[in-house]
C-alpha cells in the first residue's frame, strides 16, 4: 500500500480530493433535480405483471415518495448535513454535560 501512502501524504492530492468531494456534492444535488424534473418512470414495467388491481396500486405506491418533504429534490442533502451537525454537536454537548466521565470512574 506504499503507493496509497505516497499519494495521501502529498498535500496536492489531498487538495484534489477535496475538490472531488465538492464536485460530487454538487453533482448529487444536480442529479436530484434531474430526477425530480424527469418524467415519471414509464409504466411498461407494470404491464408485465398481469396482477390484480390491488397489487398494481402497491407497486405504484412504492415508486412515489409518499411524504411531502421528499418532493424537495435536495431534501436528503439538506437533511444529511443538518442532522450530521446537530447529532455531532448535540451528542458532544450531552456527553460533556451529563455522561462523560474519567475512565476510572467506576473503580473509585
Amino acid at each position, binding site marked *: 500500500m506504499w503507493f496509497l501512502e505516497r499519494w495521501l501524504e502529498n498535500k496536492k492530492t489531498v487538495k484534489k480530493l477535496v475538490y472531488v468531494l465538492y464536485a460530487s456534492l454538487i453533482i448529487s444535488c444536480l442529479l436530484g433535480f434531474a430526477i425530480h424534473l424527469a418524467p415519471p418512470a414509464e409504466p411498461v414495467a407494470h404491464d408485465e405483471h398481469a396482477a390484480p388491481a390491488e397489487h398494481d396500486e402497491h407497486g405504484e405506491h412504492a415508486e412515489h415518495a409518499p*411524504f411531502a418533504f421528499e418532493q424537495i429534490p435536495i431534501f436528503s442533502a439538506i437533511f*444529511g448535513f443538518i442532522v450530521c451537525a446537530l447529532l455531532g454537536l448535540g451528542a458532544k454537548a450531552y456527553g460533556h454535560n451529563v455522561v462523560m466521565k474519567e475512565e476510572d470512574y467506576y473503580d473509585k
Partner: protein
Amino acid sequence: MTSEIMTVPPAAIFIVGALLIPLFKGKLRQAYLLLIAVAAILDVYFMQDGVYWLHPFMEYELVLGRVDLLSKCFAYVFTIAALAMTFYALRVTEAGEHIAAFLYIGSALGVVFAGDLITVFVFWEVMAWASVLLIWYRRTKASVDAGFRYILVHVVGGVLLLGGIILYMQESGGSIAFDAFDYASPATILILLGFIINAAVPPLHAWLPDAYPEATITGAVFMTAFTTKTAVYVLARGFAGFTIDGFAILMWLGAIMAIYGVIYAILENNIRRLLAYHIVSQVGYMVCGIGIAASAASMTGTSIISQTAIDGTAAHAFCHILYKGLLFMSAGAIIYMTGKSKLTELGGLYKVMPLTMILYMIAAFSISGVPLFNGFTSKSLIIHSAEMAGNAPIFLMLEIAAVGTFLSVGLKLPYFAFFGKDAGIQAKDPPTNMLIGMGIAAFLCILLGVYPSLLYNILPYPAAIADYAPYAAGHVIGSLQLLLFTYAGFLVLKKKLQPENTISLDTDWFYRKGGVIFMWVVNNPLARGTQWTIDATLAVKDFAVWFSKNPIEALGIITDKVCLGVLSISEGATASGKGAKATLDSRMREYPGEPVRRDPIGVSVLLGTIFLFAYLVIYVVAPHLTVYSMIGLFMVAVIAGIGLRVREMMRGVEG
C-alpha cells in the same frame, strides 16, 4: 431430490460437535471445526419446511424443528456467519473457548428452530451461559467483572421469560406453542421483557456495550451475531402483531433505540464499544421493523406493509450479522495486532494494516447503506415499509440514525484509526486465517449489495417485495446525497468530533453504582446486625455458664461490682474503695472457688423463707398494688440493698 437427504437439528451438529473438540489437536482440530461449520450450512440447506423432531416431555411435546422461511432465513445467516467466524477464530488454542462458541451457536440455532416455549427457554439459557465464557476467557479483571454483570442481566431476563411462559401456560390452558402473541397480558408482557433484554432495547441494553468490548477478540465476533439476532427472530416470530391497545410499542422503542445507539457511539473512544453501540442502533431498525408490522396489522389489516416490514427485518438481520461480524473482526484485528483499542491511541494504521482497512471499509459502507453494499438493500426495506405505512416520524428517525451510523462507523472510526494523526504504531495485517474469515464476510456484503435478489428470495414473504427495486434512481441519488453531505458535515466538525479519553455513563450506572450501595448495606448494617445478634447470644450463654458455676459467689461479685461503681461515683477514689476493689479482684480471680456448702440447712431455710415471701407478695400484696408501685417498691429495695453494701465497703468490711 432433497427429500432423500436425512437432516438432523443443526443445533445438535454444533452442540455434539462442541463436545468432541477436545479429542482433536492442532491442524486436525482446525479442520474439524471447519467441517462442523460446513456441515451445518449443508444441513440447513437441505432442511424441508414443516414441523418435525417432536419429543414428548412430561405432558407436553417439544418441537425442535419448526422449519419455515423465517426460521430458515435466520439459520442460513447463522451458519454462514459461523463458518466465517470459525475461520477467524482458528488460531485460538484454548479448546474451551471453541466449545463455548459452538455451544453458543448451537443453542442460538436451537432457539431459531424451536416450536415451543420450553425449548426456547432451555436454549435461551444455554446461550447466556455459553456466551459469558467467551467474555471470561479474556482473563482480565475488567472482563471478569463485565462477565458477571452480563450474566446477572441475562439471568434476570431468563427468569422474566420463564415467569411469562408459566403464566402463559396457565392462560392458554396448558399450551406451550410458540406462536404469535398478539394481545397484551401479564404473560405476554413478561415474555416480551425477556426477549427485549436480549435484543438490547434501552433502557435494558447496557449489558451489551458493557460486555462485548471486554470479551476475547474472537469471542466478541461470535457474540455480535447471535444473542441480539435470536432476540430479533423471536420478536419477529412472536410479537409481529403485538400492540398495547393499538399502540405499537416496538415501533417506537426500535426507532428510539436506533438513535440512542448512534448518540453514544459519537461519544465513544473504545473502538469495540463504539461498534457495540451500533449493534444497539442497528437492532433498533429491526425492532422498529417488527413494530411497523404490528402497527400496520392493527390499523389497516393489510398484510403487504406488515410483510414488507418483516422481510426488511429479516433481511437487515441477515446483512447486519455479516457486516457487524466483519466490523468486529477488523476491530479485533487492530487490537490483536497493535494491543490498543482506543481511538485516542490509534491513527495512521492504513500504512501498516492496509488489508484490514479495506475490509473494514467494506463493512463500514455496508452498515452505512452505501449503494452496492448489502446494508443499502436491507435497511431500505425497513425504511420503505415506514414510507408505505405513511409514518413520517418513524421514517425521519430511521434516517437520522442512518446519518449517525455513517458519521461514527463510516467516518469517525476509520478517520481516527486508519488515517488522521499517525500514531507511529508498528504492526502488520493479521494472520491469513483471520483474513479469510473477514474475506468471506466482505464478499457476502458486496454480493448481496450487488445482487439483492439472492437475499430477497429467501425472505419470509418474497411475494410482498417482488416489486421493490432498491436501485431505483431516486433512492440511489437520495442515499448518495445523504451520505455525501454527512461527509461534508463531518469534515466541517472534525475538530469537534475528536475522540476523547473518557467513558460515557449509561443505564448500567444504576446497577453498577446501585451494586456498590447494595454491597455496602450488606457489609455494614446487615452484616453487623447479624454479628451483633450472634455476639449477644454468645455473651448470654457465657454469662449463664459462668453464673451457674457458683451462683451465690457470682451474685455477690455482681452486687459488689455495682456497689463499687456507686461508691466511686459518690466518693471518688478513696482508700476503702481501693481495698474493696482489690478484694473484689481477688474474688473474681479465684472464682468459682469452693462451692458454698458451709451451712446447707441455713441456706434451705433462707430459700424457703424467700419463696414464701414471694408467694405472700404475689398472692396477697400484689392484687392491691399497681404495677408501677410494685416496680417502685422493688427499686427501693434494690437501692437500699446497694446502699447498705456500699456503707460496708466504706468501713472496709469485706464481702
